[in-house]
């Protein structure tokens, strides 16, 4: 870092604290303040000053269902985190790193393992497509899977997971299916772990469990022998309607 670069960044910190930089410049400043304590402190103090501007904003009450919408995503992820953190197989959560933690642009690299969910495939929620011609209830539930798609179909009580364009699990792992009932911890979709494992990236897989309304189906990457509690963040979560 040359003095002139430092100076250029220093001059941009006000705009940075106000969120007024274009993405590329914002990233450059963020990278700089990770290694420059002087600019980090300066940016941090200016960000605090900028946040005080909120005091002149009229206070409003958000719609009551906003909390429910947020918690509907947080709760299943929390259950999974708790289940995974009790697993002895892997230490999953990296310690927090010190730094300009408030800066949104910076944080992805530091994010906890949970943040990987955001990248690998967040939850999109459920859609119910209705009944098929024979009066059999068919539920189709969608989730995002990176760039692919996944959904669960339930016909006459038999559930199938349909995946399309799933990424190959890394590190010699396979995919394992989990079912989470209500607020309980997720369990392997079958007591026979072999039935819960699959490697196909696109296809239709029997789910060896009967699903109740509200159950969630999750998919994680696991060692070849399968796991009794999830050791990675899921790449698929579907929620039945």
């Amino acid at each position, binding site marked *: 870092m040359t003095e002139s670069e430092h100076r250029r960044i220093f*001059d*941009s910190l*006000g*705009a940075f*604290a*106000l*969120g*007024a*930089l*274009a993405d590329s410049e914002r990233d450059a400043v963020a990278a700089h303040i990770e290694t420059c304590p002087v600019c980090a402190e300066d940016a*941090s103090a*200016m*960000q*605090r*000053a*900028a*946040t*005080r*501007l*909120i*005091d*002149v*904003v*009229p*206070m*409003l*009450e*958000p*719609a*009551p269902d*906003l*909390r*429910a*919408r*947020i*918690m509907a*995503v*947080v709760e299943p*992820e*929390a*259950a999974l985190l*708790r289940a995974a953190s009790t697993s002895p197989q892997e230490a999953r*959560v990296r*310690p*927090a790193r*010190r730094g*300009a*933690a*408030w*800066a949104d*642009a*910076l*944080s992805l690299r*530091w*994010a*906890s393992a*949970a*943040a990987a*969910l*955001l990248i690998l495939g967040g939850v999109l929620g459920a859609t119910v497509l209705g009944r098929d011609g024979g009066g059999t209830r068919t539920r189709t539930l969608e989730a995002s899977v990176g760039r692919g798609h996944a959904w669960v179909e339930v016909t006459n009580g038999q559930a199938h997971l349909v995946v399309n364009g799933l990424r190959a699990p890394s590190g010699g792992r396979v995919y394992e299916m989990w079912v989470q009932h209500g607020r309980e911890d997720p369990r392997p979709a079958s007591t026979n772990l072999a039935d819960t494992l699959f490697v196909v990236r696109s296809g239709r897989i029997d789910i060896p469990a009967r699903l109740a309304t509200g159950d969630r189906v999750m998919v994680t990457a696991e060692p070849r022998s399968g796991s009794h509690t999830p050791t990675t963040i899921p790449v698929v979560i579907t929620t039945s309607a």
Partner: protein
Amino acid sequence: MKIPRLAAGRTTDHRRLGDEDLMSLVRGGDSAAYEVIYERHGGVAYSLAFRMCGRKQAAEDVVQEAFLSAWRRSQSYDAARGSLRTWLLGIVHHRAVDALRRTGNDGRRRVDMPVEEMELDADVSVDTEVIDRDQADMVRGALTDLPAEQSKVIELAYFGGFTHTEIADMLGVPVGTIKGRMRLGLTKLRTRFEPMGELLS
């Protein structure tokens, strides 16, 4: 109004905890602790998002995205850098700026409107007029005391989500000048605010 699904006792216990303690629980996957954090800061988060987006649905989307983002990277919150409120509002602000830039100028109808004159949608309930009248008066006074050219660029950037180059175009002023005004104005505000300490909730 949806009834909270938490056991009342558990939530009550959590409500006795400070933000830092709640965040420790959140890192361990405690969703009830996070719900209390939303209870405390969701209102101000929504108020900021609404001030920036000017529309109820867009503001709710911003708050939802921001709170999910904060939940998923609770590890990156560092209390030594500032309060949880500042951290959360930083994320909300960042999301709102992104939303404004995605929607273009349609999403920015309120930008040039002075804060005091902002009208509210009829279906938005006003809880209290401002967070704290004394605080608001102090901040408003500090903004008023700035040279108009500095307060203008700060408000356009912070509440309007405009980039410094857009503001430079708008005002017909060189980009470097705009950056300088932002820096100078914020430095003055900082000097003025710092004796007050950071507002924690």
